[in-house]
């Protein structure tokens, strides 16, 4: 199977002798939805910046869709990768929603008469088709992030990196983005998504979770397995979903509930 990302023995430091990564290796398959989970300062955003070449590794190899990240390949790789950052206000550059989505298209010299239909297509994919003439000030954070996603999709990336793109949003905004991501996955099975977050409920949506702490991979597994490690996750400042916390807590009080389904748990408890 084709690999979307392949990282081998990556080493990186911002300052001399304080390594963020000393020997990191991981791989992500094409079409996979992977969450990189870690606390503030764990190195997860640094990793995203390394993958798109905004930062340069000290040693090691990063391959994106089989191409090694180097000076020669960097633009080819970037044209295939879209990234959504954390702050909705820092990535809205157009004066209207339509202008913002058009920005990348203009940079790639897409003919003007084709642009309109492309803009409409992706605006409606993220549910923003009624806002094309709106200015950024009249949009909520969630709406701005959806526009950022539309702008990225219009460039047909094979890989989308979401760098804490919901952490500054209110509950409605978070839900909007989660729904859009689910929709994208359904429409295009080949699209690879790498989501960086510390929101465990959001991480639950993905195919696989990679837990990072102090620049090292601590766990790399499907969500169900990951959250069995309550102690370790709490130790590295993360949380576990409610059902796990409840089941484990009841167990220490001598109440064994062998289920992680809320309804079933209620039934067993009320017997």
């Amino acid at each position, binding site marked *: 199977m084709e690999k979307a990302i392949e990282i081998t023995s990556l080493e990186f430091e911002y300052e001399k002798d304080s390594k963020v990564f000393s020997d990191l290796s991981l791989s992500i398959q094409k079409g996979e939805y992977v969450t990189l989970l870690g606390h503030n300062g764990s190195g997860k955003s640094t990793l995203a910046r390394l993958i798109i070449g905004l930062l340069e590794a000290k040693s090691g190899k990063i391959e994106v869709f089989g191409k090694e990240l180097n000076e020669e390949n960097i633009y080819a790789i970037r044209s295939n990768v879209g990234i959504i950052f954390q702050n909705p206000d820092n990535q809205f550059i157009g004066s209207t929603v339509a202008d913002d989505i058009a920005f990348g298209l203009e940079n790639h010299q897409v003919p003007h008469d084709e642009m309109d239909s492309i803009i409409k297509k992706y605006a409606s994919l993220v549910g923003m088709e009624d806002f094309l003439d709106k200015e950024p000030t009249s949009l909520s954070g969630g709406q701005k992030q959806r526009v950022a996603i539309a702008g990225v999709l219009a460039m047909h990336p094979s890989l989308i990196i979401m760098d804490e793109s919901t952490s500054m949003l209110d509950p409605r905004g978070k839900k909007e983005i989660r729904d859009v991501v689910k929709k994208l996955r359904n429409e295009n099975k080949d699209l690879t998504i790498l989501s960086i977050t510390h929101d465990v409920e959001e991480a639950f949506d993905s195919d696989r979770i990679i837990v990072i702490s102090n620049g090292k991979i601590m766990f790399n597994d499907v969500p169900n397995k990951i959250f069995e490690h309550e102690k370790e996750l709490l130790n590295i400042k993360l*949380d576990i979903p409610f059902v796990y916390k409840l089941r484990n*807590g009841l167990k220490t009080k001598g109440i064994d509930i062998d289920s992680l389904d809320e309804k079933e748990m*209620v039934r067993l408890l009320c017997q």
Partner: protein
Amino acid sequence: MPIKFSHLNYVYSKDTPLETAALHDINLDIIDGSFVCLVGHTGSGKSTLIQHINALLTPTSGSVDVNGIKVMNKKDKKGFLKSLSKEERKHQNIKEIRKNVGLVFQFPEYQLFEETVLKDVSFGPKNFGFSDEEAIKKAKESLKLVGIDESLYDKSPFELSGGQRRRVAIAGIISLNPDILILDEPTAGLDPQGSNEMMELFNILYKNGTTIIMVTHDMDIVIKYATDVIVLKKGDIILECKPHSLFLNDEILKELCVEEPKPISFAKDLIKNGMKISLENVKDTDTLIEEICKARVKYE
């Protein structure tokens, strides 16, 4: 320092084409020592409301009374001052409010500016007339309270991590020992443990008598810490209640587009299925487990 909003209206960009009414006829009492959470969608007027409490905004009409000092627009305040005796007028200085009401904006870490952490935190006390020595002492106390290690005092704030920067920014505000602390989404963007630690800090201040007014979208915070909840919608207060009543009000929950905290919805399901637990005692997963244990003991 009780706070009283009376018939407060606020209009942004009045008499321009961009005129927007942000708050309508707000009447609200906040009593000393309460922990109030303000909830509502983006654009509901939460931030506009809190900025009136330390007079960063003045009402288009109406007033906010903070411990007897009235925040009003210039014209109204002039008329009000005329009605007072000379002695009473002395107690109407807005600067007193600024000293006693600390306001922490959203993402306060973007407002750090000094060369070192210690200088940044002592800026506030110095500005309010404390000597260098006293200001440094206050800064050190509040840095200790927010859990910033001494080894970081002489570092540039920009060398710190995001979570540390936020603590430093908050230390800058609490170094003035405000009686009222207003926080606009203080935990946004923090990891779960960072968020818990931050909330425990505010809880300590609350237990020491500080009135806490917090804008938040996090219902887990509301249920665990708030004494009172105020729900805003398009510039109106649509509900004032105790945290638990908020989660019994399905209509409001739907309006707010929030899910109730998981321990609450689980407890409700248990009650529906016949378990005898009291919802008011459920504040988080731990208290839910305690309640379940109590109910099970009663059964047996």
